[in-house]
């Protein structure tokens, strides 16, 4: 391994570390805020940190088999990978991660890596609720990916590139250069898709706590669960960073990153998530395939006419 590679890896670890911290904090903050909106007191902001430490410290674990064992690994690998393939901060070497490996399509597909792996692990757990959750999750995913992919295509057409770095570069200069202003339809479609992606209400049927206790990861506990929780922070932030890059002008420094991701997250989980009841699977599928998809199509059409 030559020094260039070593530096790359070092940078990636640093970037990852920082973003994990922020991700966990963000989760804690949002939990608190949501609780307040609900009128509850809510857990402390550092609760996610405590959870992870507690779970990883548990003394015994049960394994149902190899895939069960590997499920969380897939999941977190996907979370980390997704993040690492996105250039987090425009112009920063440390935060450019491994974005030279591929463009926005790589990121979009890498998300599936974890979902599939997790689903497999959950499947081997032998718990019927897991596949039920997986089935719902996959079904819903196919639906919300439609507006999202349409939005991405619209962007690719608009900027004539698939490279995230270049998309961010094109949005620099003025706030009006942000995609949300230059291509609002794409942004809207993508943001609606984000609601599904985050599996917050009204799209939380996948993990429906009352019906199929948290769905796919039902059987996971201790270190597995710790890993899943860590992933929840990293993956969440990866998605937010992606959105920020694609639609909100990216970030030129870490502070902007924190601010922008926070705001996007607040919008999806609080502004919308709290206000709506839960959709059934087929309802959410139909929902995504109607207006959001139409908006995405419009976005493409408008862009390609230009």
């Amino acid at each position: 391994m030559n020094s260039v590679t070593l530096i790359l890896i070092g940078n990636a670890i640093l970037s990852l570390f920082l973003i994990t911290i922020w991700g966990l904090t963000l989760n804690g903050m949002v939990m608190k805020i949501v609780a307040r909106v609900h009128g509850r007191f809510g857990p402390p902001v550092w609760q996610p940190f405590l959870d992870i430490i507690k779970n990883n410290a548990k003394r015994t674990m049960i394994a149902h088999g190899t895939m069960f064992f590997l499920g969380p690994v897939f999941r977190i690998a996907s979370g980390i990978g997704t993040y690492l393939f996105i250039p987090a901060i425009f112009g920063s070497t440390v935060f450019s991660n491994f974005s030279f490996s591929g463009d926005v399509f790589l990121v979009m597909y890498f998300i599936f890596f974890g979902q599939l792996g997790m689903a497999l692990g959950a499947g081997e757990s032998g718990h019927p609720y897991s596949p039920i959750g997986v089935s719902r999750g996959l079904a819903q995913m196919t639906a919300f990916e439609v507006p999202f992919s349409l939005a991405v295509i619209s962007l690719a057409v608009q900027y004539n590139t698939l490279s995230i770095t270049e998309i961010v570069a094109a949005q620099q200069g003025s706030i009006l250069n942000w995609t949300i202003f230059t291509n609002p339809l794409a942004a809207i479609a993508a943001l609606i898709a984000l609601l599904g992606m985050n599996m917050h209400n009204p799209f939380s049927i996948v993990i429906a706590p009352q019906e199929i206790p948290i769905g796919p990861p039902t059987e996971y506990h201790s270190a597995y669960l710790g890993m899943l929780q860590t992933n929840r922070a990293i993956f969440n932030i990866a998605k937010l960073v992606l959105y920020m890059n694609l639609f909100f002008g990216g970030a030129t420094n870490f502070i902007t990153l924190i601010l922008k991701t926070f705001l996007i997250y607040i919008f999806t989980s609080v502004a919308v998530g709290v206000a709506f009841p839960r959709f059934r699977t087929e309802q959410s599928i139909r929902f995504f395939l109607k207006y959001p998809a139409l908006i995405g199509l419009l976005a493409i059409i408008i862009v390609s006419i230009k």
Partner: protein
Amino acid sequence: MVNPIYIFITSLGAAFLLNLFQKINRKIADLIFFLTLAVINYISLFWFYQLLQGYEAAKIYTAGFLPPYSINLYLGIEEAVFLVLINLLGFFSAVYLYKKFREISIKAMILYLVLIMGLNGLVMTRDLFNLFVFLEITSITTYALISLEDNKYSLTAGFKFIIAGGLVSTLFLIGTIYLYRLGGSLNLDFLVNSGVLNTKAGILATFLLVFALLIELKPFPANGWALDVYQSVHPGIAAIIASASSAAIFFVIYKFIPLMPSSFLPLLAGIGGVTFVFSNLMGLKQTDARRLLGYSSIAQMGLLLAALALIMQFDNLQSLSSIIVIIGGLFINHFLAKAGLFWLAGIVQKRNIRSWKIIANNPPLLLVFGGFILALIGLPPFPGFWAKWELVMQLSANNMMVWVWIILAGSLLEAVYLFRWFGYAVKNTEVEEIRTEAAQYLPVLIFLLGLLYLGMEGTHLVSGADSIYVLPVLLGVILYVLNWLPNKLKGSLCLLAVIYFSYRLLPALQDIYQLFGVVFLIGSAVLLITTFARKDIFKGFYPLLIIMILSLGNLLQAKTSLQFFLSWEFITITSYLLILRGKFSLKAALIYITFSLAGAYLILAGMGLAFRDTGVVSLAGLASIVNSGYIYVLLGLGFLIKIGIVGFHVWLPGAYTEAEDDFTPFLSAVLSKMGIFGLIMLAILLGEPVLKGIQLNYILGWLGVLTAFFGALLAAFQEDIKKLLAYSSLGQLGYIVLALAIHSHLGWVTSIYLTFTHLLFKGILFVAVAGLLSRVKTRKMYEMGGLINNMPLTFISVLIAIIALSGVPPLSGFGGKWLLYSSLLEKGWYLQAGLAFFASTIAFLYCYRILHSVFLGQPKTALRDVKEPSVWYIVPQYLFLFGIMAISMYPNLILKPVMSAVSTYFASSIYWEDYTVISSLGYWNGNAVMMVTMGVFMIPLLWLLFRIKAVTKVKQFNIVYAAERPDRPETTHYAHNFFAHYQKALGFLARPKVTEFWGNIAEVIHSVGALFRQLYTGNGQTYAIHILIFLLISYFILGVK
């Protein structure tokens, strides 16, 4: 020089002698009988040989006066051919019938001899009234021989025949006498330019004459009696009526052509065409084997008539050899095959075509049966194939496309019922034995060999053909002969043959062709390993397989459209037969062959058009066509049907599912690519054709993406694992077509890349499923579960294949996806890209379903002890797996050659930087992605492994179940109707609309056939009225003025 008149003298002398000997000595009588047949065979063969050597034709003047004063006979080369055939059939039919003759009466032999003599007379005589006499001789002997089976059915049929025959002879005689009156002669040659046609009466007389003969050829609808006869008489006699008598009458009509006014020819062609199509249409509903053969006979004679009448109308006939190929080919094909099939019907003894399954107990008979069926449909290597090819080419060259369609439509209908019948025969469930005697079997076999030989000879006559197909067939025959070898040895031989063939072929191929060569041959070679696991010894398996694989190679090295089509048909037939081997594949195989043949006929028609426009059959010649839209549509549609494009995909799931488990991988991984290859070849040759202002590639692109979408969607809802994979294949092929349609460097690179990866992961998946099903006796996924522990090796390869299939990085599938979107966006096909993306997400649904329902979740009690499948299933999987891993790590292993191959046709639009491939829009570094993924995967894994001492492995059923704990694991496996909610949301798109549509079409066609056959009421008088109607309508269509 033997005077041909001795044919008559010998047969008559023998007939009189037999009458004399019948009470004296049976043995001598038998000897005389066969000796006579041998002598007339000798005479006709002798003359045939002489004439071939260029000797002058025999002109026989009876009574020592020159025509037109006496009756004269003529024996030229054409006559000689017909005589030889009729007399050979006469001889072999006699061998076949001998036992029956002995049992019943020597009178039958006398009648038989005179019948054969009469047919000889029909062929040779040049005198109208003499013709009438011979006609009556053949009719009367036939009427009498019909009662060889002395039951009410044959006699009723015979009486109907007599009524029709009576009308025929009346009309014929009226025509003859008025021709004599107006033309001053009874001699055909002297009537030709005697000015008889100057008057209406003369034309009418000619009309009556010709149509009387025509009725003897049983044209639709004046043929009810003939069907009854075919159905009820002894098959040996039916063979004579269907082949020899029809041949003689056909030749008489041929003789009359110079006499006919030119306006007759289109009418004859029309009658022939209508007969061909309608007989085949009505044959669809027929279940009585012999009556079915009757319909087929009538149809074939119609085709022959139409072909003859059409050829005679050509302004520019290419060459004499075309006529020989078309008429000779069609004729001989029908002649031998129909006689053979009737004989076979006599051997099998079963009336209902469903009962023919007993034939499967007797492989030689089955082989012969299959041969005749193929010949009759006009498939290679039989003469009918060359004939149909040449006919279509010549018709196209003469701008008679309507006729091409009529003939192809009729052929397709015929293929459907013949293959249906064949299907019943293959499916053996009964143990009943067929009694065969050498005397009955031998003639059948000889006729089949004759067909094969003449089919080979056809190669020299058709332009653009060569013996490209001989090697595969030869190897097939060798493997068939070597059947006694152990299975694995045969398989190894097969494998060696494929490897050697690849070694010879691949270096000789260029760019894209070479890449497809790798897919076809190397892919097949790997898949061949699977077949080593076979336990049952099915004779035909390896022979058919080797023919199929090598023909795939031939497809690539075809230089002319004929070579291409020939190989294409070989693949179609062999794959059909292999699919038919599946246990319940009857219907699926029939649908498969129907669609395949329809596709092949479209290709044929397209090649005909190309021939019209270029005048050559070379494939390279296609490139010179200016207005190539139609050709592109026809050929393209043919290829797309083979791919199973949406709308024509109904054959695909059935064929994939019901084929034997170790053959399905071939279908999906290898065979499906032949359509892709066809499309690419077409695009190489024709570029991007436009038809009526429509960019055809644009349509192709949409078809591709819709196929991808519906394939994925339908796959998600399947419970049957093979069906799921079949639909999945369909969807993947959709992507390939989509990429192909982009028609750019990147698009083609994508397409070929996807072709390769599809070969790899579908190869794995289908082989894995084959292995799985060898252990688990169900295809329903919800009846499995938890098999990961039982067959971990299979699970791993399936897992990798699924990841590759779904396009998730870091495996090779993502490369395909990335290339696809890049090329789509580059092209500006944004909506297609969106839909493709949607389809690829839907693919996750079924991808997960396979893994979960089969390998994960709770195991079933019954399947608790199943083991890893045989090593022969594992080896090919891991070979492919190795391929996937290699090209995932180093995509340039495959991308570089593909790119360089494609850059022969397009300027490259992507370039490399180390491991990064860069398109105009984005970039992708497969190597880096792999490294990163491994890295991020390893870290948490190491952490978990570090914690491994805390892990307790528990039983699968040891789960945390809230409140209600089920007592049995199998009820806890959530797998049935896995995507119920998805069905609720999008199920309306997956409704089998297309299947219903084709089902309705099939039903409508069948009921139209059923409607028309109501004409045949069974009443002899009604049949006579039909004849009258036919005559009048024909006459008034002709509109004689």
